[in-house]
């Protein structure tokens, strides 16, 4: 069995978000780029499953839609332990466009894992769309996954709990927190090896994006925090009840 991880290249989670061009584009100046946190967890879990599979899982591949600027992030995926990488050479216009591109390479895989959202555009859509393009089952909100003898069982979050779900491969798992504990950090050996691992570049297919991010805005600045003395907790409850009307 082969596993594909859809890897998104996103601004570091501590980035102070700014926009340029009259608020029509994200300002990339000085931004550090990372693997989307959920994708990193998916990759880590895929590697754990591969290592425990006794050879049943033959490879873990990462795929990203983007220009050459995404390659350092993809190399980080290889350094963490992916066997090879595929870059689809295109500007990721919207979720529909990205999913259509990924579908072209994902056809050859048994298990496809995608993060439940990317921390930049928060689309929560690529994994599900990809499954529909491939006409395969999808399970969303996946917080656990096991593969035993070709049988895949995933845990998915539901309101107020979780379910264990059996699913037939090929399928798409849309992954959230809990799938593994901590993302793996690349070791020096992994970083050295990553330079030599194959990173294939494939051309984009012709697809029309269905949505367009026209403008951005920042949230209204908040009024200053009203401080209450620690010896006067009653006043806090009073304010919450009568001023904020929140109690």
């Amino acid at each position, binding site marked *: 069995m082969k596993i594909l991880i859809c890897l998104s290249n996103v601004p570091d989670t501590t980035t102070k978000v700014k926009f340029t061009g009259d608020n029509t584009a994200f300002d990339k100046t000085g931004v550090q780029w990372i693997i989307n946190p959920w994708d990193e967890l998916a990759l880590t879990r895929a590697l754990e499953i591969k290592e425990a599979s006794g050879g049943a899982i033959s490879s873990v591949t990462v795929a990203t839609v983007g220009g050459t600027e995404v390659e350092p992030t993809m190399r980080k995926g290889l350094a963490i332990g992916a066997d090879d990488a595929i870059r689809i050479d295109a500007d990721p216009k919207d979720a529909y466009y990205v999913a259509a591109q990924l579908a072209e390479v994902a056809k050859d895989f048994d298990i496809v894992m995608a993060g439940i959202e990317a921390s930049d555009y928060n689309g929560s859509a690529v994994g599900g769309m990809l499954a529909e393009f491939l006409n395969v089952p999808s399970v969303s909100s996946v917080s656990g996954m096991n593969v035993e003898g070709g049988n895949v069982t995933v845990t998915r979050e539901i309101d107020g709990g979780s379910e264990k*779900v059996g699913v037939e491969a090929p399928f798409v798992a849309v992954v959230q927190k809990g799938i593994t504990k901590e993302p793996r950090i690349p070791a020096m050996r992994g970083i050295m090896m990553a330079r030599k691992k194959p990173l294939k570049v494939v051309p984009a297919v012709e697809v029309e994006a269905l949505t367009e991010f026209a403008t951005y805005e920042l949230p209204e600045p908040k009024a200053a925090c009203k401080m209450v003395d620690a010896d006067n907790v009653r006043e806090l409850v009073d304010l919450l009840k009568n001023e904020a009307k929140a109690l």
Partner: protein
Amino acid sequence: MSILVYTENWEGKFKKLSFELVSYANEMAKQMGTDVVAVSIGNVEEAELKSLGQYGASKVVNVSDAQLANLSNAPYAKVIAETAEKEAAKVIVFAHNNAGKAIAPRVSVKLKAGLVAGVTNAPSSYDPFTVKKKAFTGKAFANVVVKSDIKIVTLAQNSFALVEDAKDAAIEAYAPALDATEFKTEVKETNKVTGKVLLHDAEIVVSGGRGMKGPENWDVIEELADLLGAGTACSRPVSDEDWRPHSEHVGQTGKIIAPNLYFAFGISGAIQHLGGVSSSKVIVAVNTDKDAPIFEAADYGIVGDCQKVIPEIIEAVKAAKAE
């Protein structure tokens, strides 16, 4: 033409969320000169289906096929896409929750309908169709134009108020043609926590961070939560250290919540944490460090030790309730 809303039920009952979605769809229907059709999948009684009319649904399509007892993404998407075509839906509305995120993307591909996820407002323009959504995990908003003929939105929690507009909703049964071979997922086991307020439903959330110093100190958080009918949450370090289950983790990589009132006890307020809670209407922070970033996001703050302050809040709430 119509606006279609997927109204999820929980053991046969609709929640406030379902009615919010209908209210939201009704606002669009008025602007577009059309009607709201709700689609319900599951075992829901007629009186409950009718209640969707209270918020403006003029028709409810009721699908009660036993094969759809558990969420299976592909067949659910098929049923909703078929209903959308039958009802000539121009816009399809889902909640931005587990079910919405699972189904909406598949419907989008089936109908070649542009999807905008985590929408916070009614469209600012209908031509071109433009909606505002959360971006950069709560740090910004984006105005997104949908170019396709059919549009799909998933509505972020607590972002649209209930508006009554009573209509006598017609109930129409729909029996989709579903073959057993279309079900490629099978629920083997369900584990539900009962008797606790669900985080996403909670109007008030009481949350603890590393400043709580250890899992043994959570009694006061749970006591305050019980007293307020609130949900309990925690910051990422707390769930990473297994003080609390990861299902309680709120923040950028955990759950994103938007309650009316959020208590942050012993949470310093890292930017990733704020990303998950900044849409809360009122934030209260208690922290020993007066320079903690949480105070920049909070509306009310106390510089002090949580172990001392929380019991006093509990007493003050009890006193306020007794008044």
